[in-house]
């Protein structure tokens, strides 16, 4: 019970506009981890499949455990061969850097958006730690 309350407090906290960790783009990537440490690929796997991260709305991948996969975007299988960790990090943070017209949301951005819902205003879609976990997982997707 106490654990539940702590968990729901942790959820309730980030309602104010979140401060984003500053990052530096080098070439077509972000070479340095947003958290300063490497992400956890196992957590990243679970995150990519979770509804709340929205990846599976558009993407498919080597995930036989779920039927709910999209086909608006490339299959994620082999993403770790095609892209470096630095490129994957920038792709998640702000895919529009690669293609200004892309439909892929910028996952680490909290401004310049229109009519954001009350519960989401001022917040990035993913936290820095979640980005790092997902990047670590995508890097393992090698054919």
């Amino acid at each position, binding site marked *: 019970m106490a654990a539940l309350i702590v968990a729901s407090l942790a959820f309730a906290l980030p309602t104010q506009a979140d401060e984003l960790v500053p990052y530096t783009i080098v070439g077509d990537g972000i070479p340095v981890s947003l958290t300063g440490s490497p992400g956890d690929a196992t957590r990243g796997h679970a995150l990519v499949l979770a509804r709340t991260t929205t990846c599976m709305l558009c993407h498919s991948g080597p995930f036989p455990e779920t039927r709910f996969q*999209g086909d608006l975007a490339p299959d994620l299988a082999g993403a770790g061969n095609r892209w470096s960790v630095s490129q994957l990090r920038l792709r998640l943070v702000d895919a529009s850097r690669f293609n200004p017209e892309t439909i892929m949301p910028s996952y680490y951005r909290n401004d310049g958006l229109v009519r*954001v819902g009350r519960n989401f205003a001022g917040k990035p879609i993913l936290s820095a730690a979640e980005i790092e976990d997902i990047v670590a997982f995508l890097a393992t997707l090698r054919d």
Partner: protein
Amino acid sequence: MIAWRAIAAAILLATGPALLAGEIPSDARRSGYAFMGPDTRAMQDDDTANPGMLFVLHGEQLWKKKIGSADRACADCHGDARGSMKGVAARYPAFDKALARPVTLDQRINLCRTNHQQATPLPYESRDLLALSAFVGHQSRSVPITAGDDPQLGPFVEQGRELFMEREGQLNLACTNCHDDNFDKRLAGAPITQGQPTGYPLYRLEWQTLGSLERRLRSCMSGVRAQAYDYGSPELVALELYLMSRARGLPMETPAVRP
């Protein structure tokens, strides 16, 4: 030959409807019905299996019921709906001279209640409002959509078009990204249609009830994590009007069934 082609092309350019890049040409427009499986189609096609028909029957009762301090029924002014209401829903939202703006069918029903029946307006998504609009809409079944043809509506159609094209919400997606550019594809496994407004109010299996077009638009907006417009707001009316003009020529299906 070449000259003839050039002339034909010039005529096409001059008289063709003002389709913008990415918009669906009239011969490629497809109702959500065309994207459904055989079971859901069968449910819509058979009036005894279509749950929306219960609302139509309830609406027919309300049509005949005297209400308000005027003690008048819809039928007292409009007579038999099979004649007087045929084709009406296919031209809504329509321009209201007194208000100088378009009103939806739901808003028209409530204007009749307040102005002519001296009754209170019905809340959006209430059973009675859905029933009346399903009953009126049903009289237009198979009638091709012509909403938006009235030139006075021009600026409002344009406003709706701009809203349709504008990215919004935390996911930063516009209606056009899904319903013009990606219909026939799958969002998390579920088919994306052209977002045609042909069947409203309609029975959605996911909702387990009848719902309005505005309810649908609000759920698309929440889906991209945008702040949904209020029911009856000018923006939702403009979007609804643009959707109807974008569906020009498609037959009405009220009450449709959707997954």
